[in-house]
């Protein structure tokens, strides 16, 4: 193995890591290297995307696996034991050096380290922790570290990981424990949830003051996230959102990432091979956002998604509005914030600006023109000082044309 050149290892182990959607470097603690001996800083607000790959995705962290050798056989994963992909393994020192070298050239905000499971969960986690520990303690690295937590590792290792990392994540993988059992036979939904629970407890504890009144050590200050693969099993969008809701509530997750199942080289027979359902993924993110920032409940979103599937042509907020026409038009000069947030085409930031403006003057259509991407889209749903829609439906025809879904002809 020592014969594999470093550059080739980098190629293999970043290729193996690209199916993890997260690359965020946001929301951690604020740090600077000014009072230290090493390098690195983090902002407490938004992260930095240092590049964008041609899939439009942000490259913020050096996202790699320590190794893509894996004893598990998860059907959806390119690194499963039964796949014939090239294998490699970094040493701890190699990852540390690569992180520092990339960081100093301003290519990255830090490291997102994951790994195939080798030997055992504990052994694998120990290796991941060793990289983070070396970066933090030997090199006084103050950039961002996102560590993957291997479900089933011991609580002590989870605690150690939380002390070095800005963010921890355990992937839930699939929307239901039943399909997880079928597609990832060695993984256990219980282990995954228990690991998430351990992270939540660690974060909660770190926010409590210690007995002496001193602040407890920081534990995964940027919280935890997870990823769910969309389209590898028969779960509906309603199933997926139910699962997300349960995870946000139970473990205080910062984010659930939805990852459209993507064809992989050397694919398993157990799964459909087709182009990734990117629009479905997009709609799930929108629905997730509506639940977390717009005051929609899951049942409200699900009620506008017959068969449990979100409409692919129209966004979930518009679908809800169309299903609840009696709530419109909304008078933007009078309505409460909660109702303004429900107007299709008006984002949360625009709503807050609008509330600021209407304290000073009456809102007219020209004001909305400056606030929304398309005032035409808003018109059927709003009343302004100089506008009142006629029969709501007449303009709706333009905004939301009835959709005839194209049907793929069968060959047989």
């Amino acid at each position, binding site marked *: 193995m020592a014969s594999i050149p470093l550059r080739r290892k980098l190629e293999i182990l970043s290729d193996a890591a690209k199916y993890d959607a997260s690359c965020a470097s946001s929301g951690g603690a604020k740090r600077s290297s000014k009072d230290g001996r090493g390098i690195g*800083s983090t902002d407490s607000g938004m992260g930095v995307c240092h590049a964008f*790959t*041609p899939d439009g995705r942000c490259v913020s962290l050096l996202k790699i696996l320590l190794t893509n050798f894996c004893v598990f056989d998860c059907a959806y994963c390119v690194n499963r034991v039964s796949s014939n992909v090239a294998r490699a393994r970094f040493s701890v020192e190699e990852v540390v050096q690569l992180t520092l070298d990339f960081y100093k050239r301003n290519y990255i905000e830090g490291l997102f380290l994951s790994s195939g499971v080798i030997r055992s969960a504990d052994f694998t986690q120990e290796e991941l922790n060793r990289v983070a520990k070396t970066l933090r303690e030997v090199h006084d690295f103050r950039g961002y570290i996102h560590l993957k937590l291997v479900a089933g590792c011991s609580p002590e290792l989870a605690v150690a990981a939380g002390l070095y990392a800005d963010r921890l994540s355990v992937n839930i993988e699939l929307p239901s424990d039943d399909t997880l059992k079928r597609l990832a036979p060695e993984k256990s939904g219980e282990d995954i949830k228990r690991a998430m629970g351990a992270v939540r407890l660690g974060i909660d504890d770190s926010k409590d003051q210690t007995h002496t009144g001193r602040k407890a050590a920081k534990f995964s200050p940027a919280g935890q996230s997870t990823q769910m693969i969309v389209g590898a099993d028969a779960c509906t969008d309603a199933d997926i959102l139910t699962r997300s809701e349960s995870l946000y*509530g139970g473990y205080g997750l910062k984010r659930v990432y939805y990852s459209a199942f993507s064809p992989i080289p050397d*694919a398993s027979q157990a799964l459909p091979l087709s182009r990734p359902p990117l629009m479905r993924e997009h709609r799930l993110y929108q629905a997730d956002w509506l639940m977390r920032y717009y005051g929609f409940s899951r049942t409200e979103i699900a009620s506008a998604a017959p068969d449990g599937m979100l409409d692919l042509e129209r966004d979930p907020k518009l679908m809800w509005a169309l299903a609840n026409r009696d709530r419109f038009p909304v008078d933007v000069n009078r309505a409460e914030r909660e109702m303004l947030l429900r107007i299709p085409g008006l984002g949360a930031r625009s709503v807050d600006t609008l509330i600021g403006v209407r304290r000073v003057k009456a809102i007219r259509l020209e004001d909305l023109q400056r606030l929304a991407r398309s005032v035409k889209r808003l018109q059927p749903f709003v009343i302004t000082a100089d506008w009142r829609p006629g029969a709501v439906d007449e303009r709706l025809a333009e905004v939301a044309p009835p959709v005839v879904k194209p049907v793929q002809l069968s060959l047989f």
Partner: protein
Amino acid sequence: MYAVRLASEIDFEGWRQAARRLRLADIEPPQVVWRVGEEAGLFDGAEPPPPPPDTGFSAPRAFVELAQGVILHRDPARFELLYRLLWRLKAEPELMAVATDADVAAAQLMRKQVRDAEHKMHAFLRFRRVDEPDDPEAVETYVAWFEPAHHIVERGVDFFVHRMANLRFSILTPEVCAHWNGTLSFSPGVDGSQAPPEDALEEDWRVYFASIFNPARVNAELMAQHMPRRYWKNMPEARLIPELVSRAKGRTEAMVQAPPTVPSARVRRKAAPAEVPVAPGDAPADLTQVAAALQACRRCDLWRDATQGVPGEGPGDAPLMFVGEQPGDMEDLKGRPFIGPAGQLFNRALAEAGVPREAAYVTNAVKHFKHEPRGKRRIHAKPNAGEVKACRWWLETERTLVKPKVIVALGATAGLSVFGRSVAVTRERGVMGEVEGGALGFLTVHPSFLLRLPDEASKAAEFERFVRDLGEAYALM
């Protein structure tokens, strides 16, 4: 006409003083020409008059903050726009809140573009190492050549100072250069010929960039939206983009078309999953087995949204068994019963009643946490009769193993499970007679009932009563 000459493109202080004088002298915005440095147009106006003594006005903080951002914009019209806003504020003191006003919107857009430009500098600037890495005497030094979209170098360099405080670096740009060697200094701009030579790490970076890209998700438009083309020429990885985009479709098709691979027989043997028995009909032989087998329980659906099954806790031969309703949020996360707020109250009552912990085995009628998600929290939900019935198998198993002399049911759900019928806690409270298996049954309230009482007086009274109940049950042994 009046002319104002600012010392530099980012001379906010100069602008502020001039604007102040102009407004105090009631000079309308169209009467003023704004110039920077030694620009042409020497004869186009007079100096603004000095302010009359003892006069002044204040501008809203929101305006000052906006102006400090806008001044860094490249658009020469920014000085005039800012003065026009300041002018209008006299008659329209709330103008800054009107984000939909044309001038306010224009200024806010400029500030946004300035912020974006600064952010892009933090993101897309690339350093190259210029010292000799093998020379032990050399100080690690990095140099970048960057072309910012607005005048943001002085403001943006702080980010790198925090990041690379213990290294040396220079950022070269056409207008100004910033240098850090423990202290920050600036020098005049240079041209692109001064850019440092390529760094050996750049090839590694390109390998990473190409490998982390998933061709099945290609979306070049989205990429260009986030990473405008104007920055590409100074980014080492950008030269790969055209080929990555043009080959993406073919690579994806190839993956879709390729037949699924068949793993070797050796791998298939190794990967065959070990069969895990689910909810075995055989009763576990000891409490450790109960705890393990509980994790595979599928007797009802509550396991789906719970973290884990929570088994009972306490000595395997305890004479006293307490049965609660179900685990709560904390119990679910930690996998231990009676550790949340109600559990702590229960422990206090036990101590007060003089019941030693060694004498008590505590468990729940339902072993998984039933709840409703509410945003970032989980709200307790009462288990229904079917769930209690399904879970009774576990309680019976625990009872058979522990063989307590007295079983105390805490609350109605526990009562249903222990006595096999619905009970009225307030009416039937106290000794209940013998239950299945020969133990003596006892019924009292659930400690969470005490937590829910509204006033302190009834809280204290009920707590005392609860303690009495526990003492009475203990005395039954």
